[in-house]
């Protein structure tokens, strides 16, 4: 009670102070006051309730806080408190700290001994029961309700009330309505009037304290009304009288900035400037600036095809293979950047995941891609095909296969037609030379020469009937006796010409010998033995000279020229100029053509020097033919090309023809008609029309007129040799399939 009086004193004091108007202090004080008020109230309550208690306030509170001072005697009192606590838990929790702080203060003031657990504010519950803050239902089925500090069971108070007792109690006991059960201990507690009042107040949402005035008049410390007297007595600063230099500086800076246009006044109509549209093209000037002439507008995005439809025709959808291919391909190589899909209805179509990407790529294209005007080649392919005279107009030329000469058993390397045009001689790998009658395709004569025949050549002189045959390292001169008696005789005469002069050159190299016995019977008249294997023989037009080719890399002895009538041989070259492929005499003038691997050399036989060197633009010349006029040469090569040289023009080919698919084996000119032909390993013979004009200014006209096929490709070899009939527009070809064919 002393304390309370003290409090009231203090309060009075505080009120005084308040009137004085000290703010800071007052705030603190106010807080303190509140706390104290609450405390007072509580203590009063306690006092009323437990008047008989000898315990001091302190101990009562300590009972709440700790278990140090509690005893068996004041059980009831504590329980009451407990109930109180339970009911007003919310309020308590709000207030508890205040209470504690106030307690502390009070303690300080009163200098009461501190409890050791005072600072411990964490556990609120009754610690006599040590079960802790748990739902008490857990102990529902047990006889005890928890454990005391010594670890002994606290038993539930014995309850033997049944419904009836309860009812009776309700009817009879006037305090029944204010009796509650303490769950912690299981005992009934009758609430006091104050407690009931407190509960009611709390239920109404009022403060627990009856005396607390919620509506205290608010004191305004600061008002907008200017007060008569200053709050402090401090004299004003000097700077409040003097204009500020700093401000002056700032203002002058601003003024300067405004003057200079650095700071601009606020714009008002800024929204109007943008997003307002007007007729921009009201005064259209049609002046076409150079810039606009040069401008390349960006190409538009290609329009979508059926593939892109959400429901395309079934053929536009990917099959599994196509889909796999699409997935494998690089995104750049793909034909479509998406997989065509089909949806049964529009509502099922999902968003396209790459839509933003595509727009972005378009943007990049627009500003990053170099633009270039590209002339699209809009050519009708038909216009590219050269206009040539129709083959029909260029007749005659061989068109159809009319006869097949069969009889050889090996591939037929070489054929030759007699100058009369009646006989055909063929030499084959089976070691025989056969003579055929052209018209009847009948084999008249077979001469076994005993070795693979490389080349046969009929003497072009119509007054003799001789055939040169190259096999192994010998050249045989045959007299097949397939002509008039006179002709046969004259050829015999030629062969048996006096052997007055022994060969001067090529001494020991070449051996001329007459044949005897069986061979003679077969018609072999002469045998010219060479040091090396002979590849080709070629007659001069007059029919007296004969050239033979022995290809060899290392020696200058590759070509020999024989004179049949005098049985003389000579080596015209002193130097090796490359592997000789074939040779030929000029039909009219004394020139000699030598085809080496890359070029054709033309020698003047009279002057004995090189006249011209023709460069065939090919890797390996296989064959050569000289135009009957003598001014043109064609060369076939193993790299499928045929080059036409005009000797009057240049050393480069006038025309290169790449008609064949495989190596060209043989080429030939017709003696009378403007025709030439090439035969190749692809089994085809291409007959071309090649007019040579007398006018030197006019270039030869070359027109392919017919592709002839008939030979069967065996061992990757097709046609091996080709010759024209001397008078008719017919062509003979021999192939690796052991046949000779005539096309007319």
């Amino acid at each position, binding site marked *: 009670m002393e304390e309370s009086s003290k409090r009231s004193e203090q309060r009075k004091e505080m009120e005084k102070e308040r009137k004085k108007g000290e703010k800071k202090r007052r705030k603190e004080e106010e807080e303190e006051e509140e706390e104290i008020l609450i405390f007072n109230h509580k203590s009063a309550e306690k006092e009323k309730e437990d008047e008989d208690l000898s315990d001091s306030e302190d101990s009562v509170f300590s009972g709440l806080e700790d278990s140090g001072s509690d005893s068996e005697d004041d059980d009831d009192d504590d329980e009451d408190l407990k109930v109180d606590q339970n009911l007003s838990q919310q309020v308590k929790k709000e207030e508890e700290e205040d209470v504690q702080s106030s307690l502390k203060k009070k303690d300080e003031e009163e200098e009461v001994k501190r409890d050791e657990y005072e600072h411990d504010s964490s556990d609120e519950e009754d610690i006599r029961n040590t079960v802790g803050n748990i739902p008490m239902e857990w102990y529902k089925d047990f006889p005890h309700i928890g454990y005391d500090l010594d670890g002994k069971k606290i038993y539930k108070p014995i309850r033997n009330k049944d419904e009836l007792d309860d009812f009776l109690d309700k009817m009879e006991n006037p305090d029944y309505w204010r009796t509650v059960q303490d769950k912690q201990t299981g005992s009934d507690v009758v609430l006091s009037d104050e407690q009931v009042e407190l509960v009611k107040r709390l239920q109404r949402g009022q403060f627990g304290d009856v005396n607390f005035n919620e509506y205290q008049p608010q004191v305004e410390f600061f008002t907008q009304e200017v007060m008569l007297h200053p709050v402090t007595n401090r004299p004003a600063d000097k700077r409040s009288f003097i204009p500020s230099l700093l401000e002056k500086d700032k203002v002058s800076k601003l003024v300067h900035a405004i003057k200079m246009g650095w*700071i601009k006044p*606020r*714009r008002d109509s800024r929204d109007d*400037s*943008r*997003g307002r*549209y007007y*007729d*921009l*093209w009201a005064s*259209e000037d049609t*002046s076409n600036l150079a810039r*606009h002439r040069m401008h390349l507008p960006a190409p538009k*995005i290609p*329009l*979508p*095809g*059926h593939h*892109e*439809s*959400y*429901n395309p*025709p*079934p*053929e*536009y959808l990917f099959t599994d293979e196509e889909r796999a291919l699409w997935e494998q391909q690089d995104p750049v190589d793909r034909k479509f950047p*998406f997989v065509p899909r089909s949806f*049964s209805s*529009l*509502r099922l179509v999902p*968003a*396209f995941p790459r*839509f*933003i*990407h*595509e*727009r*972005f790529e*378009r*943007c990049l294209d*627009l*500003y*990053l891609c*170099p*633009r270039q005007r590209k002339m699209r080649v809009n*050519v009708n*392919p038909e216009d*590219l*095909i050269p*206009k*040539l005279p129709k*083959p*029909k107009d260029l007749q005659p030329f061989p068109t159809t296969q009319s006869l097949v000469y*069969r009889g050889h058993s090996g591939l037929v390397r070489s054929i030759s037609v007699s100058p009369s045009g009646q006989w055909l001689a063929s030499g084959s790998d089976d070691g025989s030379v056969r003579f055929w009658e052209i018209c009847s395709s009948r084999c008249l004569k077979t001469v076994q020469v005993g070795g693979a025949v490389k080349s046969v050549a009929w003497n072009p002189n119509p007054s003799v009937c001789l055939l040169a045959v190259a096999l192994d390292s010998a050249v045989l001169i045959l007299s097949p006796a397939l002509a008039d008696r006179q002709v046969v005789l004259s050829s015999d005469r030629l062969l048996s010409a006096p052997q007055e002069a022994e060969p001067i050159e090529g001494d020991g190299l070449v051996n001329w010998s007459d044949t005897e016995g069986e061979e003679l019977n077969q018609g072999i008249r002469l045998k010219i033995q060479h040091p090396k294997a002979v590849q080709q023989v070629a007659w001069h037009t007059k029919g007296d000279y004969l050239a033979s080719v022995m290809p060899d890399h290392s020696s200058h002895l590759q070509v020999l020229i024989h004179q049949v009538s005098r049985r003389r041989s000579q080596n015209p070259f002193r130097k090796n100029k490359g592997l000789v492929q074939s040779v030929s005499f000029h039909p009219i003038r004394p020139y000699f053509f030598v085809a080496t691997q890359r070029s054709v050399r033309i020698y003047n036989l009279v002057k004995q020097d090189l006249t011209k060197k023709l460069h065939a633009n090919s890797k390996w010349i296989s064959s050569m033919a000289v135009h009957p006029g003598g001014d043109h040469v064609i060369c076939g090569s193993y790299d499928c090309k045929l080059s036409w040289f005009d000797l009057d023009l240049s050393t480069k080919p006038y025309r290169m*023809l790449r*008609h064949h698919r495989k190596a060209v084996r043989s080429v030939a000119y017709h003696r009378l008609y403007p025709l030439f032909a090439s035969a190749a390993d692809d089994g085809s013979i291409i007959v071309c029309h090649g007019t040579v004009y007398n006018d030197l200014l006019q270039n030869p006209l*070359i*027109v*392919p007129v*017919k592709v002839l096929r008939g030979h069967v490709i065996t061992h990757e070899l097709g046609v091996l040799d080709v010759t024209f009939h001397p008078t008719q527009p017919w062509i003979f070809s021999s192939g690796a399939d052991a046949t000779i064919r005539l096309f007319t």
Partner: protein
Amino acid sequence: MGGLQKKKFERGSAANYITRNKARRKLQLSLPDFRRLCILKGIYPHEPKHKKKVNKGSTAARTFYLLKDIRFLLHEPIVGKFRDYKVFVRRLKKAYGKTEWSAVERLRENKPTYKLDHIIKERYPSFIDALRDIDDALCMCFLFSTFARTGKCHVQTIQLCRRLTVEWMNYVITSSALRKVFISIKGIYYQAEVMGQLITWVVPYQFSHDHPTDVDYRVMATFTELYTTLLGFVNFRLYHSLNLIYPPKMDSKVEMDQMEDDDYAMTSESNSEKLSALSASLARAVSSAEEEEAELDQFPVEGEDIEQMEAKEKEQKQQKLFKGLKFFLNREAPRESLAFVIRCFGGEVSWDKSLCIGSTYEVTDETITHHIADRPNIEKQYINRYYIQPQWVYDCVNAKMLLPVEDYFLGVNLPPHLSPFVEEKEGDYVPPEKLKIMALQRGEKPANEEEEEDEEEGEEEEEEEGDEEEEEEEDEEEEAEEKNLKMMEEQRSQGKSLQVKVTPGKVKAENSARLEEEEKAEEKRLAIMMMKKKEKYLYDKIMFGKKRKVREANKLAAKRKAHDDAEKSKKKKAKK
């Protein structure tokens, strides 16, 4: 002798080009600014013919601009604005750093802005030029208008794009300029003809975007900036060409009607939304009735041919394709697209009130002729209207006629949707559906279609087979002869006596036409042999392309045939 020695790379093409970095330095701009400038001014790099010469002997990969272009950029006032902006950013940063908030506010208020009007005028000196280039602008604006406000770009930009696109669509509706529509898996393509220019744009489907991370939105935003300006001016001009009020307002009658029933938002907002509903006609500066009358009596210009007149008539017919039809859109059908298309072709359209503002009549309206729904079935159906799927509308537009509705009923397997942009040339593959539509356009009746088709196909097949057989027969004959000959030859070579036998010869029926053809073919082959190398290369290339086309067409046809066969066999099985 003498004179100054000519220095390399000081004349010719080397002096006409400038690399990107040099150009940037010359303009004193950072790379992003330079990029912006190039986008706005439409400057693009050039590919010099001789790169090494221009690159001063180096072969490093560089981007070249025309020096003229860069000089042209030097005079651009916007470059100054860019610099101002740079200064502004610097000042703002400084103010922030010093926490001078008043300065920050002041600076912000004076943020430098620029206008693109003069650039538009300069890039597109005439209105037609602008129209020609508006495809990309439309695509971009339609894309941006579908963006959510997620910070990928300014909200104002999105709103502006939306506004402009709605204006554009309203214009297309009013002028009924739409020609073709195509539903692709990417989005919906529209093609309109405005002042003789074909303008195509694509609108993505109405889904939220999954924003990719590898896309530079700054570039897109710069383009959009330019495009919105362009589209705004174009819209203005177009609206004025039709005597419409710009910015668009709805017809006063309609407005009055609608004013009564709803007051759910601010008038400005609701106005824009109603506009975007595309259901109401626009207000005109001159009253519409007069104009229509004036339009009615047209005099044929003397120079015009009858064909042109006919084409015009056809076009007009197409423009009024849906005239008199009343559509109702179910809520799952794409409202905006369908409303746009139907209104473009003169139809009336409405939808559920709760779906969108601007619906004009209810489902219960008895005069509705077509109800567009995209679900397998509707429980409550009215008798006097067709229930069709949305594809019908698009297919009708592309076919320029009202197609039979039977194929498009609810729950029916839809016929394929074909691209109207594909124009098949000779030799290209034409899907059979297209042939069907073409036949319908010609006025042929589609009765017993399938049967006929089957028959035709069968006949064709037979014919083909017959041809092949003939050829085969001939071949066989020849082969037989050859064999005979060979036999005889063998016998002869074996030394056997031939069975002398005279068989009556057969008269070979020579097909003169065929012979001639063969002759011609051979002639051509021979002529091709004589081609020069260069020409041959070109010719081969062209022929390769042609052959590839044919191959592709054949492949498609084969695929289709396989598919049809599979379907047929399935059907047969089902029947059994």
